[in-house]
């Protein structure tokens, strides 16, 4: 019976929040996800309002709310910012 023991996949995600987003959750934490999640789902899990997120990066690559969070990644949330 190869499938008698349910296969459980956990994802470890290093999270960092920047700027005023820190008031909503801890600045740095390691999150263990029991299932595959989108960036938006993780944001809500952390207590962030997706509307207040300006920029997202996964392993340094600019990402979007609907992207899936990969295994063992670094996920950063920034408030709305602009360069100049």
């Amino acid at each position, binding site marked *: 019976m190869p499938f008698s023991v349910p296969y459980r996949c956990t994802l470890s995600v290093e999270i960092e929040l*920047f*700027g*005023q987003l*820190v008031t909503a959750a801890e600045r740095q934490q390691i999150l263990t996800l029991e299932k595959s999640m989108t960036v938006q789902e993780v944001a809500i899990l952390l207590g962030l309002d997706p509307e*207040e997120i*300006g*920029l997202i*990066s996964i392993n*340094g*690559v*600019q990402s*979007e709310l609907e992207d899936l969070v990969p295994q063992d990644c670094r996920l*950063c949330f*920034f*408030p*709305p*910012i*602009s*360069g*100049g």
Partner: protein
Amino acid sequence: MYLLRVNMKSQQVSREPVPQKYERLGGRALIARLLLEEAPPTCDALGPLNILIFAPGLLGGGGVSTAGRLSVGGKSPLTGGIKETNAGGTAGDTLPKLGVKAIIVEEQPQRDELYLLRITADTAELLPAGDLKGLGTYATSDRLQERYGPDSTVISIGQAGEYLMYGAGIAVTGERDQRSNHAARGGLGAVMGSKGLKAIVIDKPTGKSIPLADSNLFRESARIFAQKLINDPKLGKQGSQHLYGTASIVAAVNEIGSLPTRNFSSGNFENATELRGERLRELILEREGKVGTRCMPGCAIACRNSYVDDDGKPIVGTLQYETIALMGSNLGLDNLDDVARLNYLCNDFGLDTIETGAALGIALEAGLAKFGDTESILSLLYQVGDGTTLGRVIGNGAVVTGRVFGIRRVPAVLGQAMPGYDPRSLKGNGVTYATSPQGADHTAGNAFGARKEVNPLGVQGQRELSLKLQIIAAMLDSTGLCLFARPPVIADPQLMVDMVNGIYGWGWTKEDLDRFNRTVLRDEIEFNRLAGITPADHRIPEYMRYEPLAPHNAVFDVPDSDLDAVFSAL
């Protein structure tokens, strides 16, 4: 309104009615047209045929929030092409209130003498300024405000401008005793020095606003515009720009791998945490300095700070992102106090912190000092102010420094150093550097923070994004608006149209505004073409096409054919 024409050879200062062809131009737009009409594009940038122009934007003097920037323009000694660089402070607000649409400085004195231009409500005259020779911009501003009143505005150059260094900028004072506003880029401080003009002193006007053609339309649109700034999530009282200043982006630029580090050899600085906007705010508040202050009267964003030392003593008027990038991580420095000290010296000598930071990065790569060694770096910078041989090399910017020390990794385009975004991992900015008539200049079209449009690491869509941003930048720079004020006018260009129509009654439409913006770029491109600049002069440095940048191992791979096609849709 009138044009103030200042002939440094004859010492004549004359008021001229604004010719009809210039009536509907301001700031960068007016500079481009004046240069095309009055300066031979092939002229020596530091010779008598170049002209130096000071021009407020179209909205200047009207009291529109963030619209008080002063544009300064001329042929750049650094790029060999057209240059517009702008600064906050009070000049962009006071000149229109005195009826001055632009100051045009032409020719050169016959002797090696310095002058100051004094502008009052009724008069404008050149006065000897030999007593200011060798003074930095802080001492020059202090002395002239003591002489002419604390409410006067002082525009000045420091030692770098007097030495005709290509890295020299122009300082503009602000409200009360505020300093540290600089029209820094392109070496226009050297052009001012070449004219023998040490300073301009402008009396505070008695009038509260410029004449308005339709005051109801103007007041309502300006009010909505200010309210939109206040409500903007980036710019309002709870926004990053206000809370952390321009340094709010240090962490994000580092995270995406575009933060210039040790002469652009990496896009990621291991100690960037110490340079972040969050750290800047924390330090300033702990030491009882100031955050969230203004560089222009009536600015609703207020992203400026007063950076103080451990004893609460001011080090520099405002510490900004570009300086933190070019004089912090780019030099391997992880201490904001050190960056602030370097910034103060640059401001005092009248040096562009971007150009000088890039030149210092090259000097460090050449082994003149070690990355991260603050005292050695400071001593190199002191030499620029002292005008030693080595100081003159560094003060002439990145390209000259690279050439003298045999360093091939020179982060510059069209002779001008890159600002704080490595183009290998933020390719939209690379396209702007490689195509803007202004050379490597982030204010000409900054792609950082663009979401859902393009992948910063990808090639697709960069050319269209850069063009869109360059057109918007031309509008901001011609109306006197701050770069950060763009969200409301991008979302609703009619707001800008209404504010312009409210002042001038021109009956512009959004299409007229769009044509106006595009014409600015066309005029600039034409000036550069006549100056002999070709697309080949605009290329991103070759090493950036094959030396991968950590952490993404990115190279600049936007094809030349894409770069050359950017303006085909202009």
